């Protein structure tokens, strides 16, 4: 009799547990991300575009150019030596460059950059890296120098945003600048046996700098401008050192920063000061953010295998796909992901189903 009562109690408890579990653990199934191919175009098929068309830059091997979201290749320029391209400007130049044309995306000439060195464009910001590897200058749209900074130590990492520029150096120091070139922050993250900066990123508001630095106890450091000083607000050591230059990038809202941590994507939630790592095979070469659901697309490469990994905030990996190529890029615009591969560009529309 006692055994029968016991079994009744157990069955009842199990039923109650199941009911409670269903009530409290209920979570609706998320909609699945869908990438549907729209078009694929060869970069050699140039088509006439309207002046109002949005132009998206590409770089594939020894070709740079622009295409429109609806699949028209507006320009494709072969270059024998070197080139720089952004959504606003492009140029091609030689190894001994001392004068390079500053071209708008539509091909018209804005100015000539009469400086020895390598031009570099980041959106509408124009920089020239000077011979010797430790100095650079920023120009205005007429090609006139706005400001210049020279160091004794080679620049190993660089980033700019609407409100600032940051350079990391081989001696382990970081210097950030305001839009007018005034030094905003200057510090050395330290904490490692050998000091060196391998990657730096600057927030869109210019107040925060993130970096990957050092050898033997390599670490990620996030610093924020605090009056005249820089205050480290988050740091973490990496499991394994790397000697390559690494990508460090803030998202558009400045609440998350991403970095390459040798086989992983490091993600730091700046508001909650917590971090996560997602395994990624190879070197991270591009991080792009979509305005749709704040999705993040990461392009990584290992040898000739390129992978695109898709994340949703904060650290939810939605999936990835890989392809073989000698060169590749990704661009994101609205609900579209553009993937370039050797001589072809494809559009994939992002949707939730």
């Amino acid at each position, binding site marked *: 009799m006692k055994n029968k009562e016991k079994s009744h109690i157990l069955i009842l408890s199990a039923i109650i547990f199941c009911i409670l579990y269903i009530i409290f653990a209920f979570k609706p199934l998320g909609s699945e991300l869908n990438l549907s191919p729209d078009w694929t175009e060869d970069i050699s098929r140039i088509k006439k575009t309207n002046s109002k068309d949005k132009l998206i*830059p*590409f*770089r594939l*091997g020894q070709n740079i150019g622009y295409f429109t979201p609806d699949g028209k290749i507006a320009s494709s320029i072969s270059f024998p030596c*070197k080139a*720089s*391209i*952004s959504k606003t400007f492009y140029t091609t130049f030689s*190894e*001994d*460059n*001392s004068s390079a044309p500053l071209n708008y995306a539509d091909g018209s000439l804005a100015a000539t950059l009469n*400086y*020895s*060195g*390598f031009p*570099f464009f*980041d959106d509408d910001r124009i*920089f020239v*890296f*000077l*011979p*010797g*590897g*430790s*100095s650079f*200058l920023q120009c205005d749209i007429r090609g006139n120098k706005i400001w*210049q*900074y*020279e*160091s*004794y*130590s*080679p*620049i*190993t990492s*660089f980033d700019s945003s609407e409100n600032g520029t940051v350079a990391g150096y*081989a*001696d*382990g120091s970081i210097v950030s600048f305001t839009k007018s070139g005034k*030094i905003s922050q200057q510090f050395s993250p330290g904490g490692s046996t*050998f*000091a*060196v900066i*391998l990657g730096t990123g600057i927030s869109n508001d210019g107040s925060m700098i993130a970096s990957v630095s050092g*050898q*033997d106890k390599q670490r990620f450091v996030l610093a924020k401008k605090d009056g005249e000083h820089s205050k480290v607000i988050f740091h973490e050591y990496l499991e394994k*050192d*790397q*000697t*390559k*230059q690494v990508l460090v990038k803030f998202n558009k809202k400045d609440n998350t920063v991403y970095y390459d941590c040798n086989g992983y994507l490091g993600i730091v939630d700046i508001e909650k000061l917590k971090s996560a790592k997602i395994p990624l095979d190879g070197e991270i*070469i*591009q991080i792009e953010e979509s305005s749709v659901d704040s999705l993040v697309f990461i392009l990584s490469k290992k040898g000739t295998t390129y992978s695109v990994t898709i994340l949703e905030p904060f650290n939810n990996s939605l999936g990835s796909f890989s392809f073989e190529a*000698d*060169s590749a*890029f990704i661009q994101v615009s609205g609900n579209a992901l553009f993937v370039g591969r050797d001589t072809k560009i494809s559009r994939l529309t992002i949707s939730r189903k």
Partner: protein
Amino acid sequence: MKLFIFTKSSKKIFLASFILLLSFNLFSFDWPQMETASDSFYSYFGQLRGNTIESSLVFKDSSEVKAADKGNVIAIIKEHDNDFGWFESTLGNAVIVAHDNDLTTVYANLDEETMPKDLPSNSAISTETFLGSSGNSGWQEGQSCLEFQVLDVKNKAAINPRILMPRVGKELPLTISELTLDDRDGKTTYLNLNRKIKSGVYTVYYLRQTVAVPYRTTISINGAVVESISYDMLKEKNGRLCIENSVEGNAEEARSYSKDSLYPDDKRQLLGQVRLTNGRNTLTVSIADILGERKSISYTLDVY
């Protein structure tokens, strides 16, 4: 009238240089590539290079590149010529190695295909470790050769690599010619044409040699050294890479010269600043190579 002189003050300067060399543990580095005669480099430390002062020593012959001393590989810079949105260093493909005594060496303008693939995972390296062959990945002027730098991280200075490297053969000949004096208004007096000068403060220049760079320049008035510029290191000051001077017996007069001061144009190179007072002034300019071999020239000026 030209005079060749050797003053006591100059001797002191060279003694100081010798001590400096000893403090850096003379010739502490091996060759970073095959031996090169002292007069056969493509470009020398301190020379005008584009819009900057040269902080490298650029070799003239393509060669296999090797570590100049034991150390640790701390960074590898790549061209990123296939990647979208990366800045491209004018060093091209480069390996950066940290050594003892807070010294760091930079091996730039390498060919990526020849760089050892296991270098990233093998950070501790010995002297003569192969780092790659010189290529044409960095900013260069027609030469696919090694660009070599030495950094003193503790003192935050780029060091003239030749101070710490073996030296073979004779130095490039130095010449002093076409001396000019600029007054504070920027008016230029050519000493070959005019030696009757109004008293005041002048900046003295001579004709820049396109390849050779002196190790030290000295300027004297009536036998007293008033300024000496040494091309042994470059330091950052107020955001500009500068050569530092020394003014004998007057530390307050110490100045740093950026590219704009050192090389005001493509032709002229700074020697220093002098104050000329009424009467006869003997202006003497000396330039010396890294071995201390000097050339001097003197002008007797009639100052009113």
